[in-house]
């Protein structure tokens, strides 16, 4: 029996351990849990914050669509995907993916698949705010992210 995904888009932070506990939910048939946490990363002290914008409604729907694909393709027993929005300082959490499966490979692959698709098709955008108080650029999409997604085709 596959689990339904838990998908949330929220401003507030998340707690890794409580999300893992909630996903496992006392079930004893789970053999592997892989978690991925994406953080706001500073580059040489130049960044004061990343501002995450999203398309409300579509962001959740697209994440749920990808999560359903991951659950089916890798026979996951559960999948959690949480993405934050708003202004996030370096070191703060941005995204959490947790995949649960009977064995490790499915859990690794499921979480990786979820992230690769989320990055290229969930409607979120990052804008840089510089440490000197100026507003920087919107982060550009990377070809490497498209290639990472293509490997699952």
């Amino acid at each position, binding site marked *: 029996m596959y689990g339904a995904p838990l998908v949330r888009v929220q401003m507030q932070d998340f707690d890794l351990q409580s999300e893992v506990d909630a996903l496992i939910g006392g079930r004893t048939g789970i053999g592997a849990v892989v978690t991925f946490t994406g953080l706001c990363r500073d580059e040489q002290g130049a960044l004061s914050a990343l501002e995450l914008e999203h398309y409300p409604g579509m962001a959740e729907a697209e994440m749920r669509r990808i999560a359903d694909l991951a659950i089916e393709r890798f026979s996951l027993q559960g999948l959690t995907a949480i993405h934050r929005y708003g202004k996030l300082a370096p070191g703060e959490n941005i995204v959490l993916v947790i995949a649960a499966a009977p064995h490790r490979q499915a859990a690794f692959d499921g979480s990786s698949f979820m992230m690769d698709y989320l990055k290229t098709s969930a409607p979120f955008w990052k804008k840089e705010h510089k440490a000197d108080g100026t507003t920087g650029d*919107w982060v550009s999409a990377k070809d490497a992210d498209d290639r990472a997604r293509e490997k699952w085709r």
Partner: protein
Amino acid sequence: MTKLIYFAWVRERIGKPEEEIELPHDVKTVRDLLVHLKTLGEQYEAALQYPEVIRVALDQEHVEHHEKIGNAREIGIFPPMTGG
């Protein structure tokens, strides 16, 4: 009337987060719409200067530029996504 909703630098360049417009009868596809919007003024031209990079969602689902707009009520227009 059709609701257009803009995000990230598309929103900034056009100068508003959303608007309702009447689509001209000859606007059938997503590509037609982008071509039409570019004629609405300098700000639209700046936002849609390179239409090939622009992503579009009809009623919150991704579509390609050759696809027909049909009866979509909400059209999202935005740059490539950079979440995660």
